[in-house]
């Protein structure tokens, strides 16, 4: 019954942002990441925050969804924040104890890095929340396709990614089933020390791997029987085509980011 888990953190919708070409979104997300690192002033961060807020609003995501995507990394943010405060030795010292110092510069640095981390997460979440894993794979395959010239297996990689995504829910269900079956035979998965725990996983892992190999075998047969023979001579139903909106979005975002990076 774990069927309903969403893959990645895609938040289905039909907004301007959702409809943008995945390639544009990947490029813009990369651009944002660079901007977050290059911008040096509070004004710059403010400008980026406003820009992201506008995109969030356009994508109808709501602040809760965004906050939820930050949550798993909250610990790291707080951890680096505290480390920076305590270990950065600045000029204006407020408090000192052994090698631990709290200084004006330290606090500033800590705040800057915390803001940067949050903005980084938001920028990537904007991409993954509004783009389905399938679109992401297609976008990546298309962006990386020039690498085919140097014999880089772009198509094979994206095929592997999409098959992996297809089988994640299936394998989660299978894990659940095997765990229950072994639990009914008296297996325990959460007791004992680390070594014992690892040993306890064998009744789960062996069947899971045996099952996965069988699936892989059957899937390969099924794909062969449907005439799959790699990228050669293959057509695609969905071909990514840039629309006017995509070009506008890209130009606008490049302009904004460059502006922020140069002046703020």
């Amino acid at each position: 019954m774990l069927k309903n888990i969403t893959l990645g953190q895609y938040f289905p919708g039909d907004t301007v942002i959702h409809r943008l070409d995945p390639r544009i979104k990947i490029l813009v997300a990369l651009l944002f990441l660079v901007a977050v690192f290059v911008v040096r002033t509070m004004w710059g961060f403010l400008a980026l925050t406003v820009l992201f807020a506008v995109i969030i609003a356009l994508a109808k995501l709501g602040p809760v969804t965004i906050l939820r995507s930050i949550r798993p990394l909250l610990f790291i943010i707080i951890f680096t924040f505290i480390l920076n405060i305590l270990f950065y030795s600045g000029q204006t010292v407020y408090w000192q104890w052994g090698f631990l110092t709290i200084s004006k510069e330290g606090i500033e640095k800590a705040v800057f890095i915390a803001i940067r981390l949050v903005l980084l997460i938001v920028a990537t979440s904007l991409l993954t929340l509004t783009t389905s894993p399938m679109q992401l794979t297609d976008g990546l395959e298309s962006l990386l396709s020039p690498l085919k010239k140097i014999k880089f297996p772009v198509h094979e990689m994206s095929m592997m990614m999409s098959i992996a995504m297809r089988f994640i829910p299936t394998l989660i269900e299978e894990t659940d089933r095997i765990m229950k079956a072994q639990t009914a035979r008296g297996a325990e998965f959460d007791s004992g020390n680390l070594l014992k725990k690892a040993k306890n996983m064998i009744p789960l892992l062996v069947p899971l791997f045996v099952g996965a190999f069988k699936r892989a075998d059957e899937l390969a047969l099924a794909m062969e029987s449907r005439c799959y023979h790699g990228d050669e001579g293959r057509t695609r139903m969905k071909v990514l085509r840039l629309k006017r909106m995509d070009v506008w979005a890209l130009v606008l975002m490049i302009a904004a980011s460059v502006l922020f990076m140069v002046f703020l």
Partner: protein
Amino acid sequence: MEYVIDAQKIKYAYPTLEDAEPELALRGVTLQVEKGEFVAVLGHNGSGKSTFAKHINVLLRAQEGTLTVVGLDTADEANLWTIRSHAGMVFQNPDNQLVSTVVEEDVAFGPENLGVPQEQLRGRVTEALRAVGMEGFEKRAPHMLSGGQKQRIAIAGVLAMHPDIIVFDEPTAMLDPKGRAEVMETIRYLNKEAGKTIVLITHYMEEAAEADRVFVMSDGVVTDEGTPREVFSHKEKLEEAGLMPPLATQVYYDLKEKGLVLGKCPVTLKELVDELCR
């Protein structure tokens, strides 16, 4: 008479790891299927029926004997992709034959591999989904569907390649009664309305009862063939093959033993009732 599948004494042994004497999974199968026919291949687990099915699609190649599919020799490497595009195959486990996280992309997978021009792909997908009664499910994720629905998506994926023959390798073995009914309904439609040649590998007698002709396989050879009525009435032969006739036929024989002889041997409940109420 035009045979779309013509197997002559084919033999096959799975490769073994050691130098052990390989055991023949097929020990000389001879079997012919006419264009537009609906045939069922019955047999117990391990009878070689699934091994035979994989030969039609050239997933396996006969080591002895000949097999032609739509007039093409399966032994000739050059015919491989042509044969596979003419003879589609649906497997037992619906989970292990869907490749995409989106239904429509999965259905498009086969025709994409064939290099069907892009502008025709959408049409093929729509048409195939309609044929299996799954229109409206284009954007859904396969793992959210029921077993019967998944299996119909797999059928649509084969159908979109426009094959003449569809081989079903125990397509209902992992489904609940509702899913089984859905898949059988689809198979019936594909044969009667869409004119596809159907080869159904199964061990469900009620499913075989719907076929035009039935082959019984046991121990790597065809031990019996004929209409369902003929085959089901050969009670001993069926039992030798580890099978049991459907209930209607069993009742017919039990009645006969007790001295009540009905007109003709029924293979479905409806036929039995018709015969009794005559």
